[in-house]
């Protein structure tokens, strides 16, 4: 098994879309994109944000930017001006996702 801290291979930015947060994750290089494309699944992101994201997680791929975009539904406490959250706009959630450690079998010669 190989362990990689997401923050070592990617950066990103997050923001609000109503009560959903968008979390964009960008790999620093093509190899990093291969890793996140394969192993940073919507399910893993949903589990990572347990207790923060109460809705579904959608994943979109932008290979042209070496990036994935996640939409975390029902996450911002009502969103925008309704939310009582300190981070009502989800500005710090990209950093929160970068806390993740990806674990995978290291049998892929391409990575």
């Amino acid at each position, binding site marked *: 098994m190989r362990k990689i801290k997401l923050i070592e291979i990617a*950066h*990103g*930015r997050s*923001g*609000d*879309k*109503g009560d959903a947060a*968008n979390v*964009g994750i*960008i790999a*620093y290089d093509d190899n990093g994109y291969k890793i996140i494309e394969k192993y940073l699944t919507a399910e893993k992101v949903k589990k*990572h*944000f*347990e*207790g*923060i994201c109460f809705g579904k997680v*959608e994943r*979109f*791929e*932008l*290979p*042209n*930017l*070496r*990036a994935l*975009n996640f*939409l975390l539904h029902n996450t911002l*406490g*009502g*969103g*925008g*001006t*309704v939310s*009582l*959250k*300190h*981070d009502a706009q989800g*500005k*710090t959630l*990209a*950093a*929160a996702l*970068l*806390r993740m450690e990806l674990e995978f079998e290291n049998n892929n010669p391409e990575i």
Partner: protein
Amino acid sequence: MKEKIKIASGQGFWGDLIDAPYHQVTKGDIDYLVMDYLAEVTMSILQKQKNKNPELGYAKDIPELMKRILPIIKDKNIKVITNGGGVNPVACANAVLQAAKNLGIKNLKIGVVLGDNIKDNLDELILEGAELKNMESNEPIELVKDKILSANVYFGAFPIVEALEKGADIIITGRTTDTGLTLAPMIYEFGWKNTDYNLLSAGTVAGHILECGAQSSGGNFLGDWQSIPNMAEIGFPVAEAYPNGDVIITKHPNTGGRISFETVAEQLLYEIGDPKSYITPDCIADFTSIKLQDMGNDKVKVYDVKGFPETQFYKVSCSYADGFSAVSSLTYSWPQALTKAKAADEILRKRLANLNLQFDEIRTEFVGYNSTHGPLAKELDEDEINEIVLRIGVRSHDYSSVERFGKEIAPLILTGPPSVTGFAGGRPKPSEVVAYWPALIDKKFVKPIITIMEL
């Protein structure tokens, strides 16, 4: 046709660096200055200001700023495009004309885009068949119609293009998409048609890169942020646009910040949903088609953007009053800072319960521990924690419950855990909660109105 035009971003939101637009018109050559002032919450604030005084309802920074830059933009022939007219673009234009008059400026044309504000004809529109149901929950507008504070249609680039065709030097709009501000001058200068979807999408993508100001030139950069040079004098982005849709994102020389693949890519991912379908009133841009080439020296080329025809709808953003909220905080110091803050929270919650107050939500966060990353926050060794801010907020449709909550915070200082401070701001007052009602409206129901006001 011009061979290229330079469009500079002057503001990322109302409240951004006041001097940024001044630096954009003085530190390098540009053709257009575009400024986005409107967040969703801004429209309801502006509507409230206009209700109190019919001469208000726009971004008041604009006349102040124009006083400073008018002589420069006249001299250098720079056009200014902004959506800071808010819910009263005419009053904003009048204030700018007055500022120009005071400076002795002659021959100034201001294009004003109206027609986006549908608050006063909602009933009429509903009668005509505009449903305005909530585009997320599908609920009918009747649920909130009587509580609506503001209602605005998002127009795109074409009303601005019309104002440019009429010779406007400055264009002040109400609710226009952030991206439309940047796309409009490209359509106007290069003669793009409303069916040139790839080109319209290229301009829209450039608009998305510019709309948050320095967020694409090194600000709020989550990569190697410490390597960003001279953030104190950060340069805002400039889009160098070409007739074939190629755009080079850059910034003025001798400014701080950085334009790189990474800084631009972060901004491209900001607040987007499905990247294949970035919907604007002008087109649907496909963000998965965007190509970026880092040319070095703070230049990134954006090219090969693809897009699709626009939809038949405009987006409508309504805001409505939805109860009250208040947030307050207290700071606890070492030793046992977190334990003390947690104990204070428990005591407060018990008191609120004993008072039988009505709340839709009570939310506690411990700033310095878990207020940003919640359950992902690492367990801390209590002895290592120097201080913790207890942050507690309530929301309710009952005003008096929220008001009473505000009176229960300060007493915790003398009746709760020790070594506590930080209650200097007085009792938190209930503030009105403004909620959003996003909807779609068929374009046949609303028409932009373009007028020219001149000196």
